[in-house]
């Protein structure tokens, strides 16, 4: 899986790493049990600070997408294990839905778009 970091983007780098890893897991590019690079290796490969990678990994760990142990390194778990939409997702969805309504997108078109993305349109291209 390719991780693409846009330094000119307004999205912080740690969030770009986190989001792309989640997208990779959802699209199947990163399988459950697959090993991720160490914090040091990813920092060296991308040229970003170790703290940035560490922050991305701890967010992913907190959300249950990855686990880290001393012997096995950092491994993809495959799902967040949250079991349902948390307040974080609902808040984000509310903002996106409001933006769609303000942009004049119909409810039907918005739901179709969400369905399309959910069913496989989750690539990062």
């Amino acid at each position, binding site marked *: 899986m390719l991780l693409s970091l846009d330094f000119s983007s307004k999205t912080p780098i740690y969030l770009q790493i986190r989001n792309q890893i989640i997208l990779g897991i959802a699209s199947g590019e990163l399988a459950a049990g697959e090993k*991720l690079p160490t914090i040091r290796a990813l920092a060296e490969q991308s040229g970003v600070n170790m703290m940035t990678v560490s922050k991305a990994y701890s967010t992913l760990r907190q959300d249950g997408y990855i686990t880290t142990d001393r012997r096995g390194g950092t491994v993809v778990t495959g799902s967040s294990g949250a079991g349902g939409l948390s307040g974080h997702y609902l808040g984000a969805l509310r903002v996106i839905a409001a933006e769609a309504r303000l942009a004049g997108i119909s409810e039907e078109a918005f739901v179709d778009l969400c369905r399309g993305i959910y069913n496989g349109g989750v690539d990062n291209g």
Partner: protein
Amino acid sequence: MGEAAVVIFWFVIMFPCLILIAVLLTNEARPKKNIVLGVTLPLLAQGDGRVRDIVRRFKRNVWLSTGVMALLFAALAFLSLGEFIMWSIALLIVAVFVPYVFYVRANRKLAALKKAEGWRVPYTGAVVVDLKAAAEPAQALKRRAFLPPVLIALVPLAAALLSGDGAEHRGGLAMSATMVFIGLLCMFLYPLILRQRGDVAGPDSGKNAALTRVRRYNWGKMLLATSYLTAIFMLAFWLLQDSALWTLVLTAVYMFALIGFCLSTEFTVRRTQERLTAGESGYVDEDDLWIWGMFYNNPNDRHLFINDRTGSGMGVNVGRTSGKVFMALTAALLLGLMVLSIAVSLGFSAPVEAGIEGGTLYFEHGMEKYEIPLDGITSLELLYDLPSARRVAGTGLPNLAEGRFNVEGYENTRISLNPNEPPYIAVVTPDMSRIFALDTPEETEALYEKILEAIAWTPTSEP
């Protein structure tokens, strides 16, 4: 060794250098990781007639400039030896830069065409990392593999220091120390490659990991070979240092072996990149981060040293302040070397200024400039045979020996003369000895007579 031999030696070194620069640069026109002359192009664009035309003209210009440089270089053979060597160094530096002017021009044209045609690839303007390839542990050489050559290069240095004749072999010691430094440099440069970004040419992680492995392996091989070749050269040079011919032959063999090995690893990496990415559409485009396709400029990247996009080389990230300083120092060094070469060349060809003025003997040529009070002279000789002399520091050309030398029968000696044109004036004072000659034997003899008259005593020896 005659002047002709030295000129031939320089030609043997310089002509292949010119050709190598052209070969290396024109090879950049062959797509590797979909990069042509520093511009990332989708597969379809690589076959475009206009792209081919730019590439064709670039190659023609590089070979044409190489031919012109070779002719200019050959014309230098008509100069005196000292001038020839210095001007050829200056010309070589110019010859390295000129083909890059054509490279930059071709790069700009290709980039403009790409923009006009809207040729884009999936990952544009971003730093791309292959997560699977990055997770692969690096197969690294142990640092101790670099230790034996460092120890070997230390032998001459240790031997001279232990025997207590370090001061007499200052030039050789400096060389030995340099070689030890090169060995240590290789040892400490090696881990740099392991900390670099891996190659990403497309979505195939296996291929990306293979490209990274090939680059790392060849980088390690090149550094290891450099340190071992350097150590062997140092040891052989130390054993054969009394023979001018053998030291010259050794230096040539060392340089050819080193350049040959570095080129072989460079082309191995280039060929692999070409083969593994042939027929694959452009995937990762970092052109915006590379000035003229040559200088990496990313202030957000904390790396100072960065892998070249193609081949096995490394460059500097000019987006960082330290990178800018590094590049400025390198440019100043090259420019300084060129200016120094020309200045020294002019100094070599300048006439000798020597005479007596106000009870003082003065002498000036090149870097040699001194005044000797006539009443301080303890011995004056006109030599028709130069005693055995070994250079400590300075110039040791067949037609010019100038600088600090160990001369049999004299202490603390500086000389400035043409070894093929006796006689020479040897002046000894309580704290130093000077052996010199003027531009012609007649002038030298005339000055000798003048000094004799001025000090009005019988010289220690006559021819």
